[in-house]
């Protein structure tokens, strides 16, 4: 009897194949929505990490400076200039999406739809001179010019010394930097400091700075976000795209939540999906007092459904640091089930110095269940209730559905229900709740 029971349990397993959505992808809420959003791509397997940092730096190029704690002195070969297009692509691929469906004619027998096929930091003044100063305990471990960046790798004995050194070298280091630098120094981290080499920058002919990438080995799976908070005024947005081999990535020291998803919302949102998503995100962030990390997307890199953009190619993944893919194939290797051995997790954080008192740590779980921020529009059938008996029922259900959509939208965004109903033209529709009330029928 027990044996049978155990076999029965083994046979059951939660289906992870996603249903094919016949919805058509219509819009996405990408990173351009947020002011001052930092974007980071982390690629990690075992202890090997490739970090790509996107600079949305808007000021004078000569004032640009970047300080990142790194676990070891990086050689020139470990530093690379990335392509901004890759960030755009991975952002597009993983962005929350809006899909739409059209209701079928209730007077016709149901038709089976074809499956929709889917393809498988802190800024400062320009440092004048990078000098090693033994009295300050700061050592310049290495100096390189890579692309448009002049890079120094520093090690320091005391945080005060490092702060003084950076100031003496022309970096405008904000107050409090010393305290923020101390834990990194005590743990023997090095500092990657980059500024723009204007001559080299001119040669690129580009108006923006290209992303910096570096490869290193470290048992710590984390992102140093605290340094970037020193001179932050309001809440900051961070989008982290994490490429791993096996499973979903979540924070190990902050709560990680999935955003509400797969909900029906009113069709008028089609024209202002960006506003909708911004309001939704803000509502969720406030609900958690800016203390949570939100998962916006987790999927195998081999496919998507519906696709907000084509999956990244083998070449693009390689450029982002995915080193474990087979180099012989041009397209990502297809595993059984249509996936590739690359998973992408998109995490979105809005934080303040108080709400995120320590750097973000991550762990790769063995969760492979797909998740996407997906919002659904359902267009009503354009017919008349008199056409057939089924049509009458259809319109009754449609009225209820519209009510529900309005409520969902109000809950998700914090918008006024009455405004939503006005925009949906629901005002003249009979109020479902009031007709349901039993006393309406007696007087």
């Amino acid at each position, binding site marked *: 009897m027990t044996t049978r029971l155990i076999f029965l349990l083994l046979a059951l397993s939660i289906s992870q194949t996603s249903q094919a959505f016949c919805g058509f992808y219509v819009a996405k809420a990408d990173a351009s929505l947020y002011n001052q959003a930092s974007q980071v791509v982390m690629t990690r397997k075992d202890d090997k990490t490739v970090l790509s940092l996107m600079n949305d730096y808007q000021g004078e190029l000569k004032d640009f400076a970047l300080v990142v704690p790194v676990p070891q002195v990086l050689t020139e070969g470990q530093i690379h200039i990335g392509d901004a297009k890759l960030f755009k692509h991975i952002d597009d691929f993983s962005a929350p999406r809006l899909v739409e469906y059209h209701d079928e004619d209730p007077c016709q027998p149901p038709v089976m739809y074809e499956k929709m096929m889917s393809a498988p930091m802190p800024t400062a003044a320009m440092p004048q001179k990078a000098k090693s100063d033994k009295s300050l305990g700061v050592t310049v471990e290495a100096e390189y010019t890579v692309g448009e960046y002049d890079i120094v790798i520093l090690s320091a004995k005391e945080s005060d010394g490092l702060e003084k050194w950076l100031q003496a070298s022309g970096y405008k280091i904000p107050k409090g930097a010393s305290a923020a630098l101390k834990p990194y120094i005590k743990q023997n981290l090095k500092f990657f400091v980059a500024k723009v080499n204007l001559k080299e920058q001119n040669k690129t002919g580009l108006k923006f700075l290209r992303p910096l990438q570096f490869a290193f080995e470290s048992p710590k799976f984390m992102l140093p976000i605290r340094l970037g908070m020193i001179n932050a005024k309001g809440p900051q947005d961070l989008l982290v795209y994490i490429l791993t081999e096996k499973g979903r990535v979540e924070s190990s020291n902050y709560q990680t939540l999935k955003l509400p998803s797969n909900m029906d919302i009113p069709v008028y949102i089609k024209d202002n999906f960006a506003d909708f998503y911004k309001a939704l995100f803000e509502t969720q962030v406030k609900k958690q007092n800016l203390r949570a990390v939100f998962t916006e997307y987790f999927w195998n890199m081999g496919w998507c459904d519906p696709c907000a953009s084509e999956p990244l190619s083998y070449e693009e993944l390689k450029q982002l640091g995915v080193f474990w893919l087979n180099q012989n194939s041009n397209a990502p290797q297809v595993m059984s089930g249509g996936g590739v051995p690359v998973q992408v997790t998109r995490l979105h954080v809005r934080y303040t110095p108080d709400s995120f008192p320590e750097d973000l740590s991550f762990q790769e779980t063995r*969760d492979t269940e797909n998740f996407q921020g997906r919002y659904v529009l359902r267009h009503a059938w354009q017919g008349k209730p008199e056409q057939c008996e089924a049509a009458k029922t259809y319109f009754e259900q449609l009225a209820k559905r519209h009510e529900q959509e309005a409520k969902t939208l109000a809950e998700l965004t914090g918008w006024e229900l009455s405004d939503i109903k006005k925009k949906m033209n629901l005002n003249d529709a009979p109020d479902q709740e009031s007709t349901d009330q039993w006393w309406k029928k007696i007087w």
Partner: protein
Amino acid sequence: MKYHGGHFICAVWKLDIRLWQLLIMASLLLAGVWFRDFSLYPAQIAFTFAAGLITQAIFLRLFKLEQHGFLSATITCFGLCLLLRSSALWVHPAVASLVMASKFLIRPQGAHLFNPANLGVVLGLSFFPETWVTSGQWGQDLTTALWLIAAGFFIARNAKRLDITAYFLLFYASLFLVIRVAWYGYTLPVFFHQFQNGALLLFAFFMISDPMTIPRHHKARILHAAVVAVLAYIWQYQLYWNQGIIWGLFWATFLVPLWNHLFPAPRYQWQALSGEHT
């Protein structure tokens, strides 16, 4: 103690402490599933209890121990549901069966060695696919933390094992404060952030305090708490591996027979709130 409040209060007072623990864990699980996005399927909960309790029943019959009940087994099942996450349906029941069996099969010095929920998590992480632990699932919500402390205090005090909870928290916090705050220069909010984690409090009040799997002598329990704290700290903050507290307790468990040998004391017996043996 005498009570004049009537038979009901009297009856409640004589209930096994584990019933109280069970009620608290059940409400934590409900709260977690409803308010905290625990990513746990109702079927996983049902199968965990079915498999765990059936295994317990089989072993009780095999070893002719029918006078023993299902309270501890139920608590273990709640513990597994609170801690372990899996995207497969069969993992929870399989782990539940294994840990129940371990209670009857691994018995040095005539008592089970491993804390069943602790062993379950270690087995799940080591040998089962699509299985993980979400240490951040409780959030750093202060109210949750306070609630856990209050509830845990109640259980631990009455189980007369608050000493290990207090010593573990003291050692673990001291290590963090001395090394990370005083020496590395982390700020105090980092300390509070770490120690408001529901997973840590749940561990301190509900897992390490299990009187059956910790040393029987008071002095040995202090040593045990220190060993767990040091191992957990090294695992979590020096090696940067995850779930330090769970692994710390697991490895420290191997020393418990030694502590019991060096510091002999009578075996613990479950009690009611009134102090009577159940």
